């Protein structure tokens, strides 16, 4: 019982640390909102007319859930990758010599990183509301938040798993170009899945983010491609797998 309480407090402390670091760097918060906002405005207004002419409805509404998910994707991967900074600046050693299981550390960190990413997603949601996004049913934001959290957990765990195997930021560009960008562009975040070539649709179906975006979009503006239960199952299964993988790789870190 006692050690159970201690573990909860450790997880809470690790979670709180991630949040404190987030609140304390407003520059980072604003900076990381620039890209989603640019996508939302440039693509939303730029392609809106074409989208409408093709009979697909309001592009801003279609795009908003995708860009919210994009903000979550980017923030979570980078929260995970922050471990590299902890490695570089020594703080990870302090954590690694503490009498705490690697699993607990992994769990607390992932939860913290995912919370930060979820907040970023919510901010983008509010920005989208400000430029004209209207969910069909405001109450659906509640289950949508659940799916946003799943996306956040999944990609924070992926970021941690990747970062466990890297020792410096040299690999950063590689991750950006070969992991983050493909996940974003091949997810249905910015285009509807029903009229794409079969080969592309197949690739998109292998991407866990597609299911997250599909669920969030389905809940907020309707017309999901997959049933919600499929979305939830895929996200939970992949998130659980990546958490386990991340914890396993993390436990292999030697200083």
């Amino acid at each position, binding site marked *: 019982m006692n050690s159970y309480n201690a573990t909860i*407090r450790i997880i809470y402390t690790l979670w709180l640390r991630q949040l404190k670091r987030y609140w304390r760097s407003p520059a980072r918060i604003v900076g990381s909102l620039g890209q989603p906002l640019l996508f939302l405005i440039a693509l939303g207004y730029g392609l809106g007319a074409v989208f409408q002419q093709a009979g697909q409805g309001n592009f801003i509404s279609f795009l908003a859930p995708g860009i919210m998910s994009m903000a979550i994707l980017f923030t979570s991967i980078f929260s995970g990758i922050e471990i590299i900074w902890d490695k570089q600046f020594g703080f990870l050693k302090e954590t690694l010599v503490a009498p705490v299981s690697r699993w607990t550390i992994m769990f607390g960190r992932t939860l913290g990183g995912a919370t930060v990413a979820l907040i970023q997603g919510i901010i983008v949601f509010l920005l989208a509301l400000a430029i004209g996004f209207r969910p069909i049913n405001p109450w659906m934001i509640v289950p949508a938040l659940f799916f946003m959290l799943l996306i956040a957990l999944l990609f924070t765990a992926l970021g941690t798993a990747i970062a466990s195997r890297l020792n410096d930021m040299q690999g950063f560009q590689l991750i950006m170009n070969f992991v983050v960008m493909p996940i974003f562009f091949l997810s249905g975040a910015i285009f509807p899945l029903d009229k794409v070539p079969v080969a592309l649709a197949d690739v998109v179906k292998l991407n866990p983010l597609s299911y997250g975006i599909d669920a969030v979009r389905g809940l907020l503006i309707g017309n999901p491609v997959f049933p919600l239960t499929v979305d939830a199952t895929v996200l939970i299964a992949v998130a659980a797998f990546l958490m386990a993988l991340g914890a396993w790789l993390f436990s292999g870190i030697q200083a």
Partner: protein
Amino acid sequence: MNSLRYMSTQPIISVKNLVKSFGSVTAVKNISFEIEPGEIFALLGPNGAGKSTTIKILTTVLEPTAGEIRLNGFNPVERPEAVRRSFGIVFQDPTLDNDLTAYENMEYHAVLYAVPKSVYVSRIKELMELVELWDRRTSFVRDFSGGMKRRLEIARGLLHHPKVFFLDEPTVGLDPQTRNHIWNYIHELNTREHTTIFFTTHYMDEAERQASRVAIVDHGSIVATGTAMELKNQTRTASLEDAFLALTGTSIRSEDASATDAMRAHARAWRR
């Protein structure tokens, strides 16, 4: 606790035939030593001799290639968490979170070591007063000087009352006042709590003055152990520095800069 402390006559640290290889490079060739509870033990050696590697293995952050190790009776490979509870450490490079305040860094440590809140609130105050940082408890660590960071790390390492306290080059870059202050405190701790002190340093006068026993390691092996006096007698030299040079030669050792060093240099350049 008091009665227990003198009961055990077994060494608090014992290392037998320790080997550590990184690929084809053998950083630690064959090291054996024992440290009694309450000793102040200095591990000395030129750059790249294997000091930090030995400390990393003892403190569970690196796994040995071969050898038998016990710390407080536990094997670091088999019982890492029991070993981790037994020691405190000040690493060679800072391991504080710059984006947290001094107090938050202490609190983080207390929670991770499962020190109850009723205990840690007063203990953090006591330790931070001791290293004269209590007034700066709400300042961010990033605004601290090197000496302040070192003092905070020492306070933090003692928060959970460890049996063994490792200090890897604890006084690099500190002025004589701060150095003196830190050593006074370490001696007090050693006397009062019977804490075993294990430190490395490049300052031979420091080792001579502070350590009850020293070991000199070179090229991954121990070349001499004993009190400073014994080593001076053995080499027929007048100071530990001369004894050290007599034992390890005068050629300069090179140590490759790690990616970490490169990154730190980069980060420093950015901050300016």
